[in-house]
Structures are given as structure tokens and as C-alpha cells.
């Protein structure tokens, strides 16, 4: 192939010299910065990193320490209910229970109420894919083609709305918080909306277009595990109903780990609760619908504040502190080695 070229009938102008260009690129002489691990750079990089990490770590730990959080496991506190839910035939029987707890001190600032699930593998591959984003966007799609199977249609052909295992297994406990102030029980005002991502609520999830919700979902059926159809998720607030129900949206954002929490409500900062939750006795009234015993799971309800760096997980701060310490110590080690070796001849000096 190569010497093919030489068979070209030699015509035309004289070929220019084959001498390569004497350009920096072609001669591999491009000016370049050659980083060198000299004593100065190495030591300064170690010490600077160390100092930086330590300071950031301290800030993080301090800010994480200001987070107040209370976590209550209620999966066994309503033992009757959990027994009841073990049998799925009792799906339409209601079960309520209440859990009391005491706040020793005020929780100031925005208080978020989460429900937590343990051992619930929302990240299971077949579970994660079992949804139809197009359907949730209000589009009239053939969900048979989506990956919702087997939660697509009933035997009679009625499609499920919403389809898929995620939607089907939606967390459906209702939790209310009551403040017991001097034997009077005040329901803590909780915000049901504004808990999900703005983009989810306004872009990613849309109800089918129709004059009202029930007609929009006409011809569809609720998922098998649900107690009520999707258009009755929030009967009070039209803008929190159907697919754009905040609880639903939050549930549909599948969690990364088997143990997770999802934002359920936020404490509305009005009246007594303008500064947060005051210290005192509280009661959760829980309508216990979500079975967890099947997978040896547990359910929690969590009240927590947040700071700029997230929740009360101190890991990041610790990580910074530890690595900062490590870097500093390494710096010292290298200094020691350097000082020791400098006297020897073999050590090539800059």
C-alpha cells in the first residue's frame, strides 16, 4: 500500500523537500511547565492542605453540632397495626396509633419532619426502573411499553395510574404532630407542600389535562396497594393532588440506600411555632398503613433542622479533620526524612 504512491506517474511540479518543519510542536520542543516535587512544593502542599482541611473540618463539625434532631422508631410502637398489615387482605382496615415523646429543649429554626424507612431497597434495579416518567408528565402513553411491568394494567385491561412498582409501594402512613401544652393538645401546623424539588413539582410531574382531576384519570385505576386513587391524594389542595402531590413526588424520587428518610412535612412557623418547636411533650398520631415486617424493616419519624452543610451527619467534618491531620503529619514525616537524608551524599540536591 505504502509504495503505491511511488507509482504515480511523475508529473507536475517538483516535489518540495521532505524536510520536516522545524516547529516546536513537531520537534517536541513546546515550552512546558515541568512540575517538580521539590522539598518546597511537597512540604508546602502537605502543610497547606492540612491546614485547609483542618479549618474546614472544624467549621463543619461546629455547624453540624448545631443541628437538632429527634428520631422516633414507631414500627413496633403500634404493634397491633404492624400485625394487621402483615396480612395484605386487611388493606382497607384502618389502624391508628400514637407515639409520645418529649423535647428537652427547643428546636429552633425550620423544623423538618421526615419519615424514615430501614431496609427498604428502593434502589433495587428492577424497582428503580419500574416507572413511567412519560405517564407522570401527564402524557397519554401506552404504559404497556414502559418498564412498569407487572404493575401496568389489571387483568381486565384497566391501566394503573400511576403505573409501576415505585408508585405502587408508596409510603402511605399519615403522621400528625400534636403539641401537648398544659393538657391542651395543639396540632402543630405542618406544611404539606413545598417539600419537593421545584422542578419536579412544576416540570417533571404533570397531571393529565382535563377539566377536573377525576375526569383526567377516568379510565384508569389506582395501583393495587393503594387505598385511594391518585386524584384523591390530597383532597384539600387542588395543586397538591394527582401526580403533583408532594408526597408522591418525593416517594417517586427513589432513595439511594436501603435506609433512608424522606421529607414528609415542614413545621409551619406560625403562632407558638414561629421560632421552631418549643420544648415539651408531643404526640405523633399515626395512621399505620405501610407494612414493613415483610422485609424486616423499620419505620421512623424524624424531626430535624438543617444547616448550610446539610443534616446532622458529622462525617464530612470528621473526614476533613482526619485528612487534614493526616496531611500535616505526613508533612512532618517528610520533613524528618528530608532533614535526615540531606546530610547524605546520595541525596540529589536541588
Amino acid at each position, binding site marked *: 500500500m505504502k509504495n503505491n504512491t511511488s507509482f504515480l*506517474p*511523475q508529473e507536475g511540479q517538483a516535489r518540495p523537500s521532505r524536510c520536516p518543519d522545524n516547529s516546536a510542536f513537531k520537534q517536541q520542543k513546546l515550552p512546558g511547565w515541568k512540575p517538580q516535587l521539590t522539598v518546597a512544593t511537597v512540604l508546602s502542599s502537605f502543610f497547606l492542605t492540612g491546614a485547609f482541611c483542618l479549618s474546614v473540618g472544624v467549621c463543619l463539625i461546629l455547624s453540624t453540632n448545631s443541628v437538632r434532631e429527634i428520631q422516633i422508631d414507631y414500627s413496633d410502637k403500634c404493634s397491633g397495626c404492624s400485625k394487621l398489615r402483615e396480612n395484605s387482605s386487611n388493606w382497607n382496615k384502618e389502624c391508628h396509633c400514637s407515639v409520645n415523646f418529649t423535647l428537652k429543649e427547643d428546636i429552633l429554626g425550620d423544623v423538618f419532619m421526615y419519615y424514615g424507612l430501614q431496609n427498604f431497597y428502593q434502589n433495587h434495579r428492577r424497582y428503580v426502573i419500574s416507572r413511567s416518567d412519560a405517564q407522570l408528565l401527564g402524557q397519554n402513553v401506552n404504559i404497556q411499553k414502559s418498564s412498569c411491568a*407487572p404493575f401496568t394494567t389489571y387483568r381486565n385491561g384497566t391501566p394503573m395510574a400511576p403505573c409501576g412498582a415505585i408508585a405502587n409501594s408508596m409510603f402511605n402512613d399519615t403522621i400528625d404532630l400534636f403539641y401537648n401544652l398544659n393538657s391542651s393538645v395543639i396540632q402543630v401546623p405542618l406544611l404539606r407542600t413545598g417539600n419537593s424539588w421545584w422542578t419536579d413539582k412544576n416540570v417533571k410531574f404533570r397531571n393529565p389535562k382535563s377539566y377536573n382531576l377525576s375526569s383526567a384519570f377516568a379510565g384508569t385505576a389506582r395501583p393495587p396497594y393503594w387505598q385511594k386513587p391518585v386524584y384523591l391524594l390530597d383532597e384539600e389542595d387542588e395543586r397538591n393532588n394527582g401526580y403533583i402531590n408532594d408526597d408522591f413526588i418525593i416517594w417517586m424520587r*427513589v432513595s439511594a440506600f436501603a435506609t433512608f428518610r424522606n421529607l414528609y412535612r415542614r413545621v409551619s412557623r406560625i403562632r407558638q411555632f414561629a421560632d421552631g418547636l418549643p420544648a415539651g411533650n408531643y404526640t405523633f398520631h399515626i395512621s399505620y398503613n405501610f407494612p414493613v415486617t415483610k422485609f424486616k424493616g423499620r419505620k421512623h419519624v424524624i424531626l430535624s433542622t438543617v444547616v448550610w452543610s446539610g443534616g446532622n451527619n458529622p462525617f464530612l467534618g470528621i473526614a476533613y479533620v482526619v485528612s487534614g491531620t493526616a496531611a500535616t503529619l505526613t508533612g512532618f514525616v517528610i520533613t524528618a526524612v528530608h532533614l535526615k537524608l540531606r546530610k547524605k551524599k546520595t541525596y540529589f540536591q536541588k
Partner: protein
Amino acid sequence: MALSVDSALHRWRRLGARSPAQSLSESTPLLFSVRDKPKLNLNKWRIVFPNNGRQWKDWKQASTFYSGNRIQTTKYTWFTFLPQNLFEQFHRLGNLYFFFLVVLNLFPRVEVFHREITMLPLIVVLFASMIKDAVEEYRKYQFDKTINFSKTRVYDKEEHAYVERCWKDVRVGDFVQLQCNETIPADILLLYSSDQNGICHLETANLDGETNLKQRQVMMGFSSQNTFFEPEFFQSTIICEVPNNDLNKFKGYMEQPNHERVGFNIESLLLRGCTIRNTEVAIGIVIYAGHETKAMLNNNGPRYKRSKIERRINMDIFLCVGLLFVMCLVGAIGHGIWTGNFSEHPSYDVPDENGNFLSPVLAGFYMFLTMIILLQVLIPISLYVSIELVKLGQIFLIHNDIDLYDEEADLTIQCRALNITEDLGQIQYIFSDKTGTLTENKMVFRRCTVDGIEFSHQENAKRLETHKELDLADEDFAKLQRFTLPPTNIERPATYKQRTMRPLRRCQSARAHFQGHTRNRSLGRRDSNQSQVAFSSTIEKDVTPDNRLLRRVREAALQTETLSSFIHTKTSTTLTDFFLALAICNTVLVSTATEPRQRVTVPPSIKPSGITLEKIHQMFQRLKLASLSQSFSSSQSSSDLGASFSAKNTEEHLAALDCCDNDDVCCASSRGDEFQGKCSTDIGSASLDEVFKSVTSSSLPTDFCYEAESPDEAALVYAAQAYNFTLVSRTPEQVTVRLPQGTLMTFNILYTLGFDSVRKRMSVVVRHPLTKEIVVYTKGADSVIMDLLEDSAKDDISAEKRMKRIKEKTQKHLDCYARDGLRTLCIAKKVLNEDDFQKWANFRREAEAAIDNRDELLMETAQHLETKLTLLGATGIEDRLQDGVPDAIAALREAGIQIWVLTGDKQETAVNIAYSCKLLNQRDTLFTINTANKETCESLLNLTLEEVRKNYEVEKPQRKFFGIIPTSFSASEAPSPEFGLVIDGQTLNVIFQGGLEEKFLALTKHCRSVLCCRSTPLQKSMVVKLVRRQLKVMTLSIGDGANDVSMIQAADVGIGISGQEGMQAVMASDFAISRFKHLKKLLLVHGHWCYARLAKMVIYFFYKNVSYVNLLFWYQFFCGFSGSTMIDYWQMIFFNLLFTSTPPLLFGVLDRDVSADTLLALPELYKNGQNSEIYKPSTFIITMLDAFYQSLICFFVPYLTYKDSDIDVFSFGNPINTISLLTILLHQALEMKTWTLFQLVTMIGSVVFYLVFSLIYNAACVVCNPPTNPYWIMEKQLSDPTFYLLCLITPVIALLPRFFIFALRGTFGASLILKAQQLDKLPKEQKDLEIQKLRLRKQTTSGAPVASSASNDDLDQNASHLCASPFLHPAAAAGSHGDTESQGLSASEVNPPRKRTPEEGYYFFNRWAEEEYTATDSSTRPCSGHYPLVPSRVTTPGQDGGKLTKDNAKNFNHGSHQRSASAVTL
């Protein structure tokens, strides 16, 4: 009509169908009778009918069986491209793996990604390769098209004229008319040439790169020369061989209508692709067309080799497969257990479409497959694509290196193999050819011996010396100019031009002449001063004649003047014959400086013979007058004068012989001077000089240029010219020589028996114009010619004695020459009587017409003729060392490369070249093993081995005791006597056949260098293979000629030297360079870089893939081993494909760990690659561990951060993806040693591109990627401080250990590479100083002496004395001792550190091939007492150096030894 076609077919079939049985059974086809036609088989023969009016029917039938002239080098057509290309691509394992994954992903149960996503890599790879192929195909197609549509003139039978046609329409049997400077469209049998002798000149540069003209001749006996060729009258049928790829062989015959057969051979074939030169019109008939032409059949594609790194990669990929298997197994088992844990299926365990659940075992099995898909990237298929790209880049840069550009030849390095660049950095053994590789293959006439008298040509030697300096100065100048002037137009300084005798050089005029034509390529070459093959440089052209010889020649000339009186002394005729043979016995083409390439065929103005005699008389008259009038004292008549000369001559001659006998010094130049003195006083040369000057100036003042096929031929012709035997013109029939007398003598050439490597000689048979004798002049290798000499003249005893003496003398001189490193050729002649010649000529003619075993027959006839020769003399031609060779060899050796020289040359020549190019050091002990016997060979090997080992043991304590050696800088300086091994082809054969390979290798491992002399191409390749296989080392072969091809192919890396001896070596090579010295930069710099770059890149790729894939793997532990991913599929696919692909590629092409200067200054850095220090199993494992660590960090830091939070799957994956991108890029940044703008831009660009892509993708896609919808995740993350905090800390933690180790490594300062990097930063002067220091330290520790330039210098000084000094016989040593002494002293003055005392110098035992010496001189055996077992044994210098050295044994000091050799010959 139909009938006639049928009959034609029938005829054709009849011709074709005849079985070859008969012709095969015939022992000699010479006996073919005309009527008894040979039977032809189409499989064996090709029958060509001419395409003219008369035979077109036959032609039509036949031509359908032969391919047309359209060429198609493309692999596919428009329609077959897609399927065929796909088919070919799926032959690759990597693509099959992808395909397997795609198929796997089609099963819903195991599906991980969308089908499109899995297909993407496959499609990308397929598509990329397809585009590459398509572009290549298209270019080939275009190229074919240009060629196919080139025009040529073809005879048209209807129009009865030559009409213009495209090349593609040329058919076998067509008559093609070619004009000067046209390219030949097919393989054409020459039928007519406008040249009156039926010669057509070709330039085969397109075929083999040789620019000299080749002659092609209209086939003998086909004589329509005088009339213009008329195709219509051509009625013969041509029968010849079937197409084959041998460019040098072709045979066939033409059957004329009268059933007469005329044979032809390659001499009549015009090959496709060559260019017609110097011939106005040539007409021929197409024999082979298109793909059946010899050129096309020779046209091989580029070579494919697997490099060492690639072999390692494949191993490691198997490791990766193992790792993948383990990981998948973990996933499968984990999933099985996890599934089995549930007594009841939880709501997140989704059943299949029918609502069924799988059993844990089955689920585990499916999970195994799923995991394969998920973790597929673990097998770095992208690595292969990347490697190919990187190598392309590397080759581009190598190709563009200006230091590897040879101005003279206008050639850059050619990289023919595209995928073994990094092997250049790992070479451990170099096998080099000698001639043309280490030497220039520019032959310079150096000295000669005629009739047993040596003419040492001192002036010539001096001239060569000055030329060397001139060359150097010239080179510097060229270097200066390189950057200021376009190199093609460099004009040498005028002063330089003036210095040479003939200022008007060929090149300049050539350019002027050809400007109008299209001589572009060769023009570029010719422009440069030292031009190539065809055009000898000044150094070759100007031979300064030896005064003594010149005088003798003139005397002889005078005698021949007096031919009338026929005083016929032996010497004079021998001298004349000798130079005549030099001038005639060759195939040199003559052209003049003013009219290049217009060959001089007819001697201008003066017609030979008749006028010549007159001229002789005239001249003689003048001579007489001149002599009388001037200092010529004698008033004898001319005849008497001649007689007296001759008498004197013989006297002298005998005296010289006697002298030589006395002291064995064959090249006694001093004596020669004496003679000169005598001669000059006696003869009064001044007058003679004048006479000759006037004569020569009067006739033919033109400057002749000689174009020879081999450079030594030209050298001889130039040598003859220096003695005024000027070759004036040459045609196939005649050759004209201008004699010293100024007369032109025209010889009729009766036959020319060309040179071949079997006979090792060539002959011309001429008829002497005056005596009408038939003379055979033969020129050839001494070994051959010496055997063919006439045994002894029967007639008289004195003559016989004399002949014998001359023979002995000449042999001695030849040995001298060989030791001197000269190429020797013997010149002989033979006078035939008419009858014998006629007999032989008949025989020859028959042989020429034969078809079947013609070559053997021709050989036989040639051998028949070349017997009973009379020795005329011998010549020594110097093959000069290429410049930069010693330097390159020293550097390569310092780099830890073992260099072997494998040559077909004589032992002595090879050894001397080895010394002069620093391959051997003066202090080295040299072992020579020449034997044909297995037992002796074995015992010799054992013995030598023992000796070597002993020496190594001895060395160690010695170092301690002789701590202080004054010669050198530091303590441990007793340089261990290094060993050299010289072995010849015969011994090699014994070794190979006797199973002694291991011992041989064990010995060679201790040797500094190994020379294999007298080895055949096959042996060369066997040696290379032996070393490569047994020692498992990387080998490199370098050579320039066809005899090196097998060796080049046998080695891991084959390098061809282009431009000297044709293109075969280049064609077989992986890289083609133009000078040996380029090897230094190619290996030390490019090799090192390529290796370092590629090795680092490969390791990085493994690291990258493993560390990224492991992120997914770790996640499996948190998602029930269900095969979930937390990273969006597209971002994951693009991660490898886009975000992290460019920086490593650029890294692989551009990174410079150490600068080129430092690499060249510290060759030791090369050992880094040699020992595979960058990429070895341990590095691989460490990298893997590091990858695991980093992936753990990249996964678990975010995991722990987000644990128990409300993070969702893909929001969790996003920071992980980002973090690992940063980590992977920063890791690369740590590895990178040079940051140029490119690297910086791509590095930052990669991150920016990732961010921008993610932002856009995450904002644009609401439903586009259903299950893993990443909508708005990146945006959300970017507004979260945790994300930034994570992105800061994780890479730091991940890379901290690596950085720490780097820092420690720098602190402990272990590796030389690091030091070199530090050196790079220093300013120039300081750097040089440091390098000097470093090298010194290295020297002292390793003890490997860096051969100082001084040793080379004094070798050069020795050169003139060489015959006398180094290989002396002990007996003779005494005689020449004084000489060596002064030599040694003068050298020590020049070079104080290497001081040596005369007592210690030059003791030699030479038991070379000359058995008679060992027989006669018992003095060689005085010391056998040391090793009584072996009769002739290894001698360690000094220790048992015989009587002479025994006195000095106590002072014996290894360090100060001169060259020493131990030879063992049996």
C-alpha cells in the same frame, strides 16, 4: 467468423493443454529441436499473442485469461463495503466482546442499560473503524483512478497507429509505445528501442529507490532495429513464466512463425512503474498487466507486529477478565443470598411481567450476566483504540523529527510498522550489518597490489584524511544552514568546491538539464553534494595516484608504445592489463559532466584502431623529442629505452619480492619511497610528466561520470582513471578506454558475465584491438579468484616460481588489506585462443536460449570460462565508516544495549571495523573461534567460558588490591578486561547443528560484543532468532541490503538503512532510517519517550477503568446486588468516551518525562525502558490496588456523607461521578511530567466539558432517559455546598497516598529518571556539569569504560601502520616493535590518562586462518603449559603472553592494556 474464432480457440487450447511432462523430463532444454515443440501448460507458462491485425483472434482468446491493466488496490466496492467491512471488524476480539454484551443486554432479565446504550460503544468503535477504512479506501480508490486513467500510447490494429489510451485499457499482448520520461504502464517486453544498439534505459527509483540507470535491451536475435518497428509484422508468440514477484528473474522465449525460438530474460523486460530515460522511443509488448505485474506482486501492505507492551497488555487483560469474573461472582452470590433472605417478597422486589419471582439460584445466575454488562468497562476495550491513536501520534512525531532527517538523501525516517513504536524503547540487543550500515558503502579506492608489489598510496590516504575533516566542516556548515535556507538549495561554499579537482559536479548540471522534465524526486537528492548511488562523491572520484605506481604505469605505457618492437615484459603488460581490467571489467555507465545521462557511446572525434596507431606514432615522436631536449640523459633509441626500463623493472620487482620475504612486512612503504627515489633519479620523470600532460590535455578534456550498480565498481574505474586509464565510453558491444598515452583503445566486448553472489566474481570477454587476442578479465573476491588461478605454467620453472611467489605475496597483501578494514578484490585475466572461445561461445548461446534451467546453465558456462586465470593484482577499497557511528555505538552501549555485528565480510575486516567504531575497545580481550568440528567447538566454548568466568572472579579481589590506579579518576578503576567474541559462519553452523547454543549464549552474555563474520543471511537470522528466543530479550536488527532482510524480519524491531543498496531491506523493515547515527536518537529519545508514554498511558487506562467500574461494584453492596447504577447511563458511557479520553491520549503522545538533550547526554536513562520499569507486573498490581483504594474513597466518602439522608439514587451518583472525574484527571496530572498548553487546555477542558454537558443534559431531558431520569440533578447539586465540600476533600484523600509515595521517592532520590528530571530544570551549563559528574560516578561504579575518543584517534593513526602492528606474528613483532613503540608513545602524549608503556603494548597471538603459520612457527606455542589440555588455547593478555611478556609479567596491569586478542583456530 465463428469458425475462425473456434479454430483460434482450438489452437490456443492446444498450446495450453500440452502437458509439461516432456519438457520437464528433458535434462537440458538446450537440446530442443525446433520441430519438437515443448508442451505447454498454462499453469506453468504464459502465452502471449500480439494484439495486431494478424493475430488478434488468438489474442482475443488468450487475453480473456489474463487480467487487464486496471488496478484495484481497494478491498471493497461500493456495495460490498458495509457487509464486508462489518464482517472483517467482527473478526476482532474486542468487537466480539461488545457484540456479546449487546446480545446479552437484549434479554430483559439481565438487561442493565438500554439497548442503545450498550450498543453505543460498539457502534462508535465500528463506525470509527469504518470511517477510517472508508477514508483509506477512498484514497486508494482515488489513487487507483489516477493511475488507471493515466495515458499511454497503445497500438490500435484498426487505425494501424499508436493511439492514446488509459492505462486501464492496456491488455496483455498490446503494443505500447513509450517515450522518454514516461512511466511504464505494465510489464512490457522490449521489442524496439530508438537507441541504435537496442538499449533502453530505465530508472527504477519507483521500484527500488535506486536512481542509477539500468539498461534494458531488445532481446537478442530479434533484430528489427534498423527499421522502425511495425507491429503488424510481428507474428511471433511469446511464451514466458507465469506472473511472479521476483524482480530480478524473468525468462521466456519467443516463437517466431518459422518456429525459431529466441530466448529472452529480465534484461528485456520493462517493469511497470519504472521510468524510461535517455531513450526517445521504446516499443514493447505487454506481458503482464495490472495486478500480475512484478511491481504489484511485490507490493506488500504494512507489517503488523505485536509489541512487547501489547503482549503484556493482553496478559493483564486476562487478569482483568479474571477480576471481572470474581466481581460478577460476588454479585451473583450476593444477590442469591440477598434474595433468599426474604420469606415473603417485599414490595420493592418486583416480580417479572407475569408476576412470578425467580428462585435465588436462578436470580443469582441472571445477576452474574447482568454484572458482566454492568462492569463491562473493566475490560478496557477502549484501550486498544486509544493505543492505536497514540501510536499514530507518536509516529507522526517521530516522522517529523528533524534530527532524523537526512539532508543528503532528502529522506526522513519512514515508519512502516505502525504499532511497535514503544519497542524502540526496550531494545536489549542490536544486530547490525556492517557494510552500508556501519560503513558508508561509499567505496574509496585505497591501495592496490600489482604483480606482487604493494602500492600503499600514502598520498591517497592523506587525502582521505583531509576529506574527513572537510566533511566535518561541511557538516557543521550544513547544520548552520539548515535553519536559514531551504535545505534543497544548499550550495556548498565555493571554496570547498574549488578544492576538489573537478569543480563542475554532476549534480548541478543534472539539475539544469532536467529542469524541464519531471525529475522531481531524484532531483532533490542530486542537489545535495554528497550524492547517492549513481553519482559518486568527490571523495570517491579523486584518487591521488601513488607516485611510484604512476611512474611505473608511465614506463609501461612507453613500452606499449613500442609495441612494434614487441618487447614484451611481464610487468609492463601486467600493469597495463591490471588497469585495463579495472576500467573494463565492470558494468559502469559513462556519461559526461556536461551532458549527464546522455551516455557516451561513440568516442567523439577520434576513431579507434586505425587512427590510434598513427596517434601512437605521433605521440611517440613528441615524446622522443621532449626526452632528448630535456633532462633525459640517455640517447638510446626508443626501443632500447623500453628495454632498459623493463630490465630495471624486473630487477626492482624481484628485489621488492625479496624484501618482502625477508621481514614479512608486506606494506613497507618506506622501501617504496626508496624505490621512488631511485626511479626518479634514473628516469627523469619531469619530462615524462610534461609529455603526458600535453597529451592528455590535447584529447578529450571532458570530465566523465560513472554510474555503477555497485559503488566499488565505480571506485575502481576512478582509480584506473587516476592512472590515466580512462573509461571513455561503454556500449554492450564495445568499450573504449583512453590509455595513458592518450590513445583511445576500443575493445569489442564479446561477453559480459555479470556478478552474482554465488560465483562472487564477474568477467568480461573482450577482443584486444591490437593483438586480436581474446582476453577474459575477471574481478572477484580473493577467496574465489585465488582458487581459480592457473596452477602453474608448465613451460618454465622460473616463471612458475615467480607466479607462485606473486600469488603468495598478493595473498599476504590481501590479508593486510583485510586487516586494514579494506574490501579486497582480485583482478585476473586469461587469454583464450579462438577455438576454445568459439566452443565456449556456442555453449553459452545455447544456455542463453534455454528456458528450464537456464540459470544453472549460465552459471555453469560462466564457471567453465573462469578457470586457469592469471593473477594481475588486487585492490583494497576502503569502505568508510559512516560519521557518528562510533558515537552512536558508544551511546547505545552505555544505554545497556548489546551490539552484535553480523556480516558476510572477512574476519579481519570485521574486527577492524569493530575497533574503529568503538564496538571493541583496545583493552578488550578478543576470543576468536573458528572451527568446523563439533567437539573442538564445544571444548573451545567450555574453555573460553571458564576463562571468562575466572576472569570475573579474579576481577573482584583485584579491585580491592589495586585500589589506586593512576590512569583514572577514582578508586575502583581496574577496568575489567571486557571480552569480545569473534565467530565465523562455519562455527555458527556447528553451534546450531551441534546443540551448543546454550554454551554459546552463556559465553556471549559475558562478552562486550560479538562479531559474526562470514555469515550467510540465513545464519544471521538464525542468530537473531536464537538470541531472541533463548534469552527472551528484545532484539533489533539493522541492515541495508537484501542479505539483511531475513535478519530484519527475524528481530522484534527491524530497521532498514535506505538509499544505499536498494530497497529490499527497507521494504522488510519496520523503520527505515538513512544513517546509522540516527539510531541513537531513535532509540534513546524516541524509544524512551514512546515507551514511557505508552506504558504510562496503558497503566493509567487500567487504573481509570478499574477505579471507575469499582464505584458501581461498591454500590451493589447497598442495593442488594441487584445491578443498579447510581450514575446516569449516558453520563457513565460518556465518562470514558468523552470526558476522560483526550487527556490520556495527549499524555500518550506528548508527555516528555525527560528532555531530549538529557536523554542523549545520559544514555543510561534508556535502561528504564529496557527493564520495563514503568510497566511490569508489580506496577500493574500496585496500580490495581491504588485503583481499588481510590474507588473506595470516591464511593465511601460520599456514601458516608449522604448516609441516612433523603438523597436519591442519581443525586448520590452525580457527586460520585464528578469526584471520580476529578480524581482520575488529577491522578493523570500527577503522572504528567510536562505541561504544555495542550495538556492544560484539555485537562481543564475535560472538566468544563463535563460540567457543561451535565448541566445541559440534566436540564434538557425531562423524559428522555426514562428509568434514570437525571432531570435537574446537576443544577440542584451545584447549589448545594455539600457537593463542593465533597469534591474538594475526596480527591485529596484519594490521591494523598500516591502523592506521598511520589514525594518520598523524590526525597530518597533513587531513580536516575528523577535525577534527570531535576537536571532538566537546571540552566544549561550547570546541567552539563551535573551530567558530567553523574556519568563519572556511573563509570566508577559500573566500571564500564566509556571509550574515550582518544582511543579512536590513535586507531586512526595506527591505520597506516596497521598491517605492521596489531595482528603481528610474535616473530614479526620484534621487527616492528620500534614502530609500535613510537606509536604508543605518541598516542600517550596525545592522551595522558591512557598512558601505556611500550613493554605492555601490542602482544599478539595471531592464529588466524593461515594454518601454515602455526605449522612453521613454533613460537606461538611457548605457553601451552598453562593449559596443557588444549593445544591451542585462549590466551589472556599479559599473563601468558609468551616469552616477550614474561619479563614484564610482574608489572602487569590490566588497566593499561592495549588491544589484545586471543585467537583460537582449529
